[in-house]
């Protein structure tokens, strides 16, 4: 590596660090904004007080302080981080496969009418099937384990991404296309430089919906098979009457979902800035 390459790598690293800093700052400002804290703090206070005052049974509705103790116990004694890691592995595998299949198919369906006529009816038939209804047949095909869980997360995230991408590509402004054609753009160039970029905001939005659906399916998948993961721990805690631990799992899922949405918002800000704030 020559000195110019070293310098380039260093500045890229600095840039990445700076962007990461911006991301965390932005995410933190969203959750710790004065407006939101004015809602959050009274809610937490009420949640803490009601069980303590005996208005609701404390064992069935544990206050946040009990939940915090349970969280400490789970992270320090029960290796809950490993469960989070296992869940995230499945989640990103399922979501990743959904993203890399749904976006190209959606773009192709939006771009080409012949392709749309052949593929769209099939997806329109399959999409209304609620993702949890896929569980029994998935178990029959894949057995119980990682492939089955990954498929269920995939099926949860796939359709929102597919249909939003398709719709956004289909709705591309005709004058942009006409302008590009005037300058001699090929169909491939149109897909890569006009359709895709026009649809990007909607695609990122659809991935956000995919994240939410994927998390739903993650919990369902882990309820049905496997012995690790947040969903598994959640159901175990429920079955053994440990509500505080159940709440810890729910809060963890919420935090993961929030973090991923923030990450996607940041990506949207960087790649599709013209869509942000609309």
């Amino acid at each position, binding site marked *: 590596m020559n000195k110019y390459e070293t310098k380039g790598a260093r500045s890229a690293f600095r840039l990445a660090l700076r962007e990461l800093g911006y991301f965390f700052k932005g995410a933190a400002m969203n959750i710790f904004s004065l407006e939101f804290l004015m809602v959050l703090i009274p809610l937490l206070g009420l949640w803490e007080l009601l069980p303590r005052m005996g208005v609701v049974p*404390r064992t*069935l509705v544990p206050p946040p302080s009990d939940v915090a103790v349970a969280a400490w116990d789970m992270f320090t004694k029960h290796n809950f981080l490993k469960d989070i890691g296992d869940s995230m592995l499945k989640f990103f595998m399922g979501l990743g496969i959904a993203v890399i299949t749904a976006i190209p198919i959606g773009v192709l369906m939006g771009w080409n009418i012949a392709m749309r006529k052949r593929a769209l009816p099939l997806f329109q038939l399959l999409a209304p099937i609620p993702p949890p209804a896929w569980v029994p047949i998935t178990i029959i095909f894949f*057995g*119980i384990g990682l492939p089955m869980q990954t498929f269920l997360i995939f099926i949860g995230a796939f359709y929102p991404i597919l249909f939003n991408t398709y719709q956004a590509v289909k709705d591309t402004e005709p004058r942009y296309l006409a302008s590009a054609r005037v300058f001699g753009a090929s169909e491939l160039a149109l897909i890569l430089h006009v359709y895709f970029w026009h649809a990007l905001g909607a695609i990122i939005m659809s991935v956000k919906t995919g994240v939410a659906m994927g998390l739903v399916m993650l919990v369902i998948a882990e309820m049905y098979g496997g*012995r690790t993961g947040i969903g*598994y721990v959640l159901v*175990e805690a*429920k*079955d053994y*009457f440990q509500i505080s631990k159940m709440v810890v799992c729910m809060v963890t899922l919420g935090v993961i979902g929030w973090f991923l949405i923030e990450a996607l918002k940041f990506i949207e800000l960087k790649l599709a800035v013209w869509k942000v704030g609309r």
Partner: protein
Amino acid sequence: MVSKPIFVALFFSLVLTACGEKDTQVKIGHGGGYLSAALYAAHGNFPVNMQQFRSSSDAAYLLLLGQLDAVFVEAEKLGALSRLEGFDRLTVVGKVTYPYGATLVLRKGLNKRLHELDGLTIAVSAPQCKLLTAFTEDAERLGADISGVRYKYMAFDAMVPALESGEVDAAIIRGTYSVVALQEGHFILYQNWDVQPGDECCPAIIDQAALALLAHRSKLDAIEPLLDALEKTRELSQDDLRRAVADNTVIPFEILQGQPVPEFSRADDELVEIFRQHSHDDDDHNHDHDDHYGNVCPLPPVLGYSGQAWQPPEV
């Protein structure tokens, strides 16, 4: 033609009548399956509103909230359940016993004999579990070398799914799970029903209680006839009980043949005490052998699981 005010009055009187109508039947929650044999059999002679749940814990929550009158819950959950607020309003009125048994189930498609187990991975609940001891002793007695077997520790609940996923090749399960394993198409290679109650292995082995019937104290009078009906099922033949299960579930009668039959008998809160003494507290959990939440065999007292030497109860 009916005038509008009369129509409205009629409509509301109908709605109010429907709302006011009380369901007089005893509402009982259960997890279904083979262990509900007595309930299925009693249901034929006694009107009862049976509500099946995927997990008996869900039914237990509804019992605590007063939406059910009685619930069959896994006996090993009694300890954890008894720590919840409102449990003092409940009482144990019966139990379903089933031989604990040591059963070695082979994954479907794995055609092995007892002396061919070397190199396989077998799921067991704990290193010192009595079921494992019974199996190894019997294997040695029959001349099978199982020194090359790898053991994987997991909760009984997780064993059949682990067989399904191929995570393990075989599992040493307790008797109550053998029907589930057979139903999934797995194959029983070895079964020993002589594992006696009161050994040091698992809390659930005490008294061979598989399920406990919990009821609201305020509903005891209403439940009494149901308890009589449940007790009377002991007079039925084993095949009658198996038939009741086959008629009410998707378990084929043929699978149940050859399996012991679960029995219902009356019980009291002493059962809660027994399970409470031997259920897990998070602080003294042995984390080497648990899953997450105490759904495991504890280690025997010699390994210092609870810090106190445990005395088997008199049976």
